[in-house]
């Protein structure tokens, strides 16, 4: 077993039995479910809206090469600079080069999964550059030295008491502050950071080809501040975030808001289409957009898995997933957790190291049901499993077992050969351990339906 798989098993076992964790997650996802139910009311025909969204992403991804060049052309016209990064290292090197050129010592960053994917904060820290998270949830996680627990709500696993304790320990505040007071503390700490930072870094929720812009969605105004004060704005974004036209936002903004948090529309939606223009009074002097591949073209090449690139990172499949709710975001050991993470990570970071995630699903299908862009998530898990078998990532023992299963299932005679009692003995000996200590084993009937039918019906 790969070490990632055994670490996944170990962590998931611990979390699945952690009743405190279960309570916090069920409570927070319960609140989310109520909000989303209300949020969906804004759509007169939700099914059609989702179908349309899927079609738009389909078009965007099937013509991705053209759209990316169109984006580059349009952004460049307005003075923005586009950098193409094939992998995480290239993206990091480019960011470091900009930092060096600007003699940057301090960066403010708004929440971005792409920067998590390349582990930007620790990389910059190694080069003595401070990179501060400005989204409150991410700020909490950064203080705690933890990666985000969830792609939309990074500190979902922490109760308000947990956060108060963390602030007391790390920032010396009184240990019993209310959420409101805690927010004010964070706000005060962050204000100075915005003023000091030479560079602001954001991700992007959407790349918009026809206007050469990137769209950023947020609730706290921190992305706006991160891009308004510093003289340089860097955007790190995965190439799959493409939308062909600014008009598509009319659908995607409310869809993302509803499925992400249950809002009708997120509080702040900004479109950045270049640095400060002549005659404008504010905005950064320079704007860089780093278009990152980092494994995404592996998915693009796989025509079955391609639709996983339609994902708009709303997090609804995580919230809908009983596995995620039992083991939490950190057990996955990946940037993208939950069902969509289990689909894309084996492609992004290697089948051998991450294929176990594609098996870690009961295939209940709820992820597919809730996906706003109607990605067939659970079927893509099956696709990955099939691919793993085809590409020889499964063990010899497993192959033998399925060969044996096939032989037995092809012959009714073989299935009837052994009595129920013998099967029960066999099961106790070889199966009891895997079935575990928390369940009694099922019991084979002494005669199968097949045998009984022949006896009773003659």
């Amino acid at each position: 077993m790969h070490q990632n798989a055994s670490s996944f098993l170990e962590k998931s076992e611990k979390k699945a039995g952690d009743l405190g964790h279960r309570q916090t997650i069920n409570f927070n996802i319960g609140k989310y479910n109520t909000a989303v139910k209300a949020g969906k009311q804004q759509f007169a025909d939700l099914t059609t809206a989702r179908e349309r969204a899927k079609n738009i992403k389909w078009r965007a991804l099937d013509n991705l090469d053209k759209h990316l060049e169109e984006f580059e052309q349009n952004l460049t016209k307005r003075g923005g600079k586009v950098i193409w990064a094939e992998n995480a290292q290239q993206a990091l090197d480019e960011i470091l080069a900009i930092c060096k050129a600007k003699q940057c010592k301090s960066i403010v960053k708004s929440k971005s999964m792409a920067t998590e994917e390349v582990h930007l904060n620790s990389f910059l820290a190694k080069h003595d550059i401070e990179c501060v998270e400005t989204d409150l949830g991410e700020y909490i996680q950064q203080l705690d030295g933890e990666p985000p627990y969830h792609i939309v709500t990074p500190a979902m696993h922490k109760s308000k008491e947990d956060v108060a304790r963390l602030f007391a320990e790390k920032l010396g505040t009184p240990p019993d502050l209310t959420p409101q007071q805690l927010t004010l503390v964070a706000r005060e700490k962050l204000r100075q950071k915005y003023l000091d930072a030479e560079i602001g870094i954001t991700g992007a929720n959407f790349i918009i080809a026809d206007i050469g812009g990137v769209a950023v969605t947020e609730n706290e105004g921190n992305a706006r501040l991160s891009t308004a004060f510093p003289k340089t704005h860097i955007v790190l974004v995965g190439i799959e975030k493409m939308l062909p036209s600014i008009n598509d936002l009319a659908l995607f903004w409310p869809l993302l808001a509803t499925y992400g948090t249950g809002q009708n529309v997120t509080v702040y939606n900004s479109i950045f289409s270049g640095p400060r223009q002549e005659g404008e009074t504010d905005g950064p002097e320079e704007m860089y957009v780093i278009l990152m591949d980092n494994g995404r073209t592996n998915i693009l090449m796989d025509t079955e898995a391609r639709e996983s690139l339609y994902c708009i990172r709303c997090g609804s499949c995580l919230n809908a997933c009983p596995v995620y709710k039992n083991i939490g975001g950190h057990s996955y050991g990946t940037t993208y957790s939950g069902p969509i993470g289990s689909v894309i990570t084996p492609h992004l970071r290697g089948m051998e190291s991450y294929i176990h995630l594609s098996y870690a699903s009961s295939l209940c299908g709820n992820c597919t049901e809730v996906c706003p862009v109607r990605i067939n998530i659970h079927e893509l898990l099956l696709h990955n499993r099939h691919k793993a078998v085809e590409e020889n990532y499964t063990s010899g023992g497993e192959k033998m077992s399925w060969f044996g299963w096939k032989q037995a299932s092809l012959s009714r005679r073989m299935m009837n050969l052994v009595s129920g009692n013998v099967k029960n003995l066999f099961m106790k000996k070889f199966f009891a351990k895997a079935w575990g200590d928390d369940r009694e084993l099922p019991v084979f009937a002494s005669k199968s339906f097949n045998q009984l039918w022949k006896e009773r019906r003659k």
Partner: protein
Amino acid sequence: MNVQLFIPCFVDQLFPETGFNMVKVLEKLGCTVNYNPNQTCCGQPAFNAGYWDEARSVANKFVKDFHTVDYIVAPSGSCTGFVRNYYGKLFDNSAAHNDVKMLRKHLYEFTEFLTDVLHVTDLGATLNGVATYHDACGALRECGIKDGPRSLLSKVKGLELKEMNDCEVCCGFGGTFAVKFEPISIGMGEQKVNNAVASGADYLISTDLSCLMHLDGYIRKHELNIKTMHIADVLASGW
């Protein structure tokens, strides 16, 4: 009306009496029930594990065993859903295309057959107590079964139906998932059973014995006061 039984492999081996209860109900409704004794499995276990060639061999046998113009009825939403929704993937561009199409048209999950084909909800069954219904994923999401089993159960004399919290959330069985990721499977099962117990139910009822087998194992181990029952066993009770 002629009906062919499809008795899924684990029902055949572990729960034969549920099969016979299904026969009892179908015969009461005037069906002539037939059973092809050559049948084995639909192929889902291997398919879900990624072994599509092995699955295809077994599915091929299934297609041959069920080459019929009769209705085919199975006590499982999971197996029915698999044949309906995934045989297309296995037999894409193959000579079996038309047979598969016919099979998908004729195959019904048991409660679906009662409510949608025979248009029957009252079987004259009696069972005293409180019941809660677990929406098995295969039935709910692969077959779209939601109200049928509830209306069937609502007609059972003496039975009071109470919805539990999260009735649509997976129980955690998931085939090989239950053993490959046993602690997660148990965590999910535990939450399902807790919800069922909290509803005040004496019976935890479903269309799928695979879910119930896993939940029953948990219930027996922890000596809880609730009993799992397949809906065919409920509908065959008291007459």
